[in-house]
Structures are given as structure tokens and as C-alpha cells.
């Protein structure tokens, strides 16, 4: 961990970024401890509903088509078919399945998603800044963001310059986030650290600090294109950074683990962690999101099991 890093702010003020070295063993231990909670019955059901409301339903493929994005938006609004909802509605205490928090697409699909989600509260998130590598000139990256915002994106998921970060040029990383934030205007900015490429927890913590200082509204683990993507320990390090930043500055930053969270059980583990590390204040879609695609179907399966007592099958749900 390079100590005593100083970042130059605009207007000549510089500030030091000081972080304690991270105890890797204990981070992993503590993160694992959140997977041991026994969440059953009504609490489990509540947690599953909450998870749905926190999902950024995502499709980020070269093969994305207008039709696929429209289909995904329909799924975001109505996660289950009407037949499925009717079957569950026969059970006592059944609550309608909520819609997800946002749909996350490439900039070229923002207009399509915007149109498909008209009249709903579901937000349109767009990855930008030459996602996922970010290896294009800054000018092009900023144009990418501008295009996504003008097409109607409510939220921008940017990638940090890992090349600069790993070369030790933290000032560049910071300055670029500042510029992206300016271009975003009123759109929320989520800063993707791509933790799978940062190699150490110390780096993750440092990148989190830089992203928050530069004005990111959310920090996000991964693009989902690099393994390992979101893990519990890496999310814990970032949550702790958010908490310390809040204590220091009073600013509330959101967290978005993304990639690799495929089943309901993992998602509930994350909720336990957020609740125990941050408190229930962070357990809201405004401050915590899952970047996921197949997670939603697994949560629906678990909800089906909770009400009917039977294990569901894949054919009950859409394929994507």
C-alpha cells in the first residue's frame, strides 16, 4: 500500500488519501461469517422481495438486439408471467412481485429501454466510458457518456482507468472521474473499480477512496467481464470504505456488487453483510444494488418454493 498519496483537487487544493493497510485474512474471515446467518420463513421471503427491488437487470452482450432489450424491460416491469402470479395469489399472505430497480444496457440501447420503461419508476442505467476496458482516449469516453445521458440514461456506470491506477498515476484516475461526473449532469454516477484487475484489497480500498472523493454516487465492484467479479470480501472492503467516508464527510455513497451473483442465497448473504456492516439505512435500492441477470429467476424460484412448498422449474420463467 503506497502511503501518503496526495491528490491535487481543482483549484489547487490537495488532499491526502490515507488508508490503513487491510488485513486480508480477517476480511475474508469476516465476509465468510455473513454467510452463516440462518434466514428462514418470513424473513427469507422479505429478503427475497427486497433483493428483487435492488436488482439492476442487466444485459451487456455484443449480441444484444432491440428485441432482447425490450423483452428485458418487460421482465423488469413484470418479473413473472400472469399465470405464475395467479398461481401464487392463491396462497395466503402473497404480495405482488415488485419490479426491479433499473435496467442496465449499453449506450446504443438506452433509447430503446427508455421507451420501453416509459411511465414506470424503473431507472435506465447505461454503462459508458468504453465499457468494459475503457482503453480509448478520454475524449471518446466522455462522448460516450454524453451520448448515453442525452439518450435518456438516469444512471451512468463508468469504468476507472485501471491502466493509470496500476501504473501509480492516481491523479489521472481522479481527474477522469471528475470529468465524467461533470458530463453526467443530473445522472447518477456509478464508478466501476473492476476489482478483479486491482490485485489487492489495499488497491480496492484506495480506488474506492479516489472514486468517492471524485464524486461517484455509487461504487461498483466489476464489469462482469473479468473474473473474479463481485465477491463478499471485496464488497466488504468497499462497504467499509463507504462507511469511513460517511463518518469523515457526511456524504452517503451507494454500493453495487455486480457479476457472479447468480443465486438467491448469495444475494441474501450480501443483504446480511450490508445490514450488519452499514446498518439498515443502506438496505434500500437508492443505496444498494445488485448488477445481475440470472439472479432474478433464481429469486423467483425461491419465492415459489416458499409459498407452494414445491421446487420450481426453469420453464416457468423467461430464459434471459
Amino acid at each position: 500500500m503506497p502511503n501518503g498519496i496526495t491528490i491535487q483537487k481543482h483549484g489547487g487544493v490537495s488532499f491526502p488519501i490515507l488508508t490503513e493497510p487491510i488485513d486480508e485474512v480477517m476480511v475474508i474471515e469476516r465476509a465468510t461469517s455473513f454467510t452463516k446467518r440462518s434466514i428462514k420463513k418470513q424473513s427469507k421471503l422479505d429478503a427475497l422481495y427486497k433483493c428483487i427491488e435492488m436488482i439492476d437487470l442487466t444485459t451487456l452482450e455484443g449480441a444484444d438486439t432491440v428485441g432482447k432489450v425490450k423483452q428485458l424491460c418487460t421482465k423488469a416491469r413484470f418479473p413473472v408471467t400472469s399465470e405464475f402470479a395467479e398461481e401464487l395469489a392463491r396462497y395466503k399472505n402473497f404480495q405482488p412481485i415488485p419490479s426491479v430497480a433499473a435496467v442496465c444496457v449499453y449506450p446504443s440501447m438506452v433509447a430503446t429501454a427508455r421507451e420501453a420503461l416509459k411511465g414506470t419508476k424503473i431507472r435506465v442505467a447505461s454503462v459508458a466510458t468504453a465499457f468494459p476496458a475503457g482503453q480509448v482516449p478520454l475524449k471518446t469516453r466522455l462522448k460516450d457518456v454524453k451520448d448515453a445521458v442525452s439518450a435518456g440514461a438516469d444512471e451512468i456506470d463508468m469504468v476507472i482507468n485501471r491502466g493509470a491506477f496500476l501504473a501509480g498515476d492516481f491523479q489521472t484516475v481522479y481527474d477522469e472521474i471528475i470529468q465524467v461526473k461533470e458530463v453526467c449532469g443530473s445522472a447518477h454516477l456509478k464508478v466501476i473499480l473492476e476489482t478483479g484487475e486491482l490485485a489487492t484489497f489495499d488497491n480496492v480500498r484506495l480506488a474506492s477512496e479516489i472514486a468517492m472523493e471524485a464524486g461517484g454516487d455509487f461504487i461498483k465492484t466489476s464489469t462482469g467481464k473479468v473474473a473474479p467479479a463481485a465477491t463478499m470480501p471485496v464488497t466488504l472492503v468497499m462497504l467499509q470504505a463507504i462507511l469511513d467516508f460517511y463518518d469523515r464527510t457526511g456524504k452517503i455513497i451507494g454500493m453495487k456488487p455486480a457479476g457472479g451473483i447468480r443465486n438467491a442465497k448469495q444475494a441474501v448473504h450480501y443483504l446480511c453483510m450490508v445490514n450488519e456492516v452499514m446498518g439498515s439505512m443502506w438496505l434500500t435500492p437508492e443505496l444498494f444494488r445488485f448488477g445481475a441477470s440470472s439472479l432474478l429467476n433464481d429469486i423467483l424460484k425461491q419465492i415459489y418454493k416458499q409459498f407452494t412448498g414445491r421446487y420450481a422449474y426453469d420453464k416457468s420463467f423467461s430464459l434471459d
Partner: protein
Amino acid sequence: MAGLNDSNLQIAKTIKLYINGAFPRTESGRSFPLHKFNSKKIYANLCRASRKDLRNAVAAAKSAQSGWCNRSAYNRAQILYRMAEMTEGKRNEFVETFVQTLGYSPERANLEVDRAIDALVYYAGFADKYQQLIGAVNPVSGPHHNFTTPEPVGVVGLLCREEFDFSHMIAQIAAITCPGNSLVILLAEEGAAVLAPLAEVFATSDLPDGVINLLSGFTSELYEHMAGHMELDSICFDGKNEKIRARIKEEAIHNLKRAIVKPQPDFTLEHILAFVEYKTVWHPIGF
């Protein structure tokens, strides 16, 4: 390493479940003792599978099924035949299990293994033949070529009879897997020690992971979960318990799974046909 050669230390085999080609312990951490025949001595402590183990086994079987039925019929036959070879190789282990836990005479135990091997070879032969034998070209009025062909039903749950019947169980396994179904088996409690050599046969026969999954546990605890599981396409139980049969038929309704609750005759084509469904194709032709 000095001294080890003189040791008479017996290393007993831990009998675990067989799910997706691996040998996990039950996620529940539970076990039940299996006694030696007519004795209070414990032969082994077996895993008592939970409904979550069942769920995992079904998920494994589901993901393995399409790959298995898309193998060439000839290759499925080879693999079933390979199982027969491996069963022969493990004959002593099977015989020892039957003698110790079921009180069979060595002659009877050997006979059971013989019949099991015969069953594997028999159904191996049918893997690339049953479709020709039972498929049909149907006469229809109109310009269509119309034909019917049997296809595997999908993922099958097999609840073994209460009374352990090794050769019948193997015949069922072979009849179900030869057309391309995958399988989750809950072994009969009294014969559950056979899980160890049997799983090793499957694990060493080039059988793709997840095609056959073996669970040991209590039928009374798991049969309703199996019968109600929406991912299973068929469930088979040919034991005597009327209550279990009736409940299976009720629970099977939810996803219209095929409930096979009548005993099927071993060593027949009909046995295989209990686990297939028929596809009829109308193909337009000129006048």
C-alpha cells in the same frame, strides 16, 4: 513410513452421496446407522439426504440430461456395457455388502450381481435399437409423410422399493438411462450400503457427471418433495406402500409428470417404453 507394513489397521470406507459425479456428504450433516444383518453392530453410518440434497441432485440431473440424450445411441450403449464391466470388477465388494447387511448367502449374493450385470448388458443392447423397434411410419390421409418416434421423457426420479432388490434396481437404472433420461435415485434404506460400490461403478464408466445421482435417506421424508418437484418429468416407485403411491400420483399432477407406480417387467422392451414419450411429425410432401 516405518512400521506401517506391520499394521493391521482397517480403513473403513465413508459412504457418501453421489451427486453430479462427486461424492459429497449431505448438506444437512445428518446420518443414520445401518446395522449388520441380524445384529446390533453398526456396519456403517450413511448420509441421510435432505430435500436440499435432492434439489441439488435434480439440478445436476437436469443439466446433464440434454448432453446425455444427445450422445449417439451407440455411445450410450457402450457406456452401459462399461458399467457391466465395472460391476464385474467390483463383484467382491457387492457380495460383501449383501452378505454383511442383508444376510445373503455368498451364492445368492453372487447371483444378484450376475443378474445385475445381465441387465446392464441387456439394456445396453437396446440403446440403439428401441427407436427402430417402436418408431413407426403412420398411414395418413393427405400429402404428408407422418412418423412417430420415441424420445426420452427427461429427468426421472426413482424411489426404490422398500425391500431391497439389487438386480431389479439395476434393471430400472439401465432401462431409464438407456434411451437418454437422467436419473435421481433414492436407495431403499435397508440396502443403502450398496451406494458405495455402485457410485464407484458409475464414476468409472465414462458416464457423464450428473446423469445418475444416488441418494441415501428416508423415503418417508423425501418422496413428497420428489413427487412435487417441478423439474422432474417422471417419477417411478413400484413398492407396495399404497399411501406413498397415492400421494405420488397427487403430487405429480402439478407439472403433469409421469407417475410410474406399477411394477414394470425387467428384461423387456416395455420396461424402457415406460420412460419415453412419443413425437409425431407431419412432414409435407408433394402429391
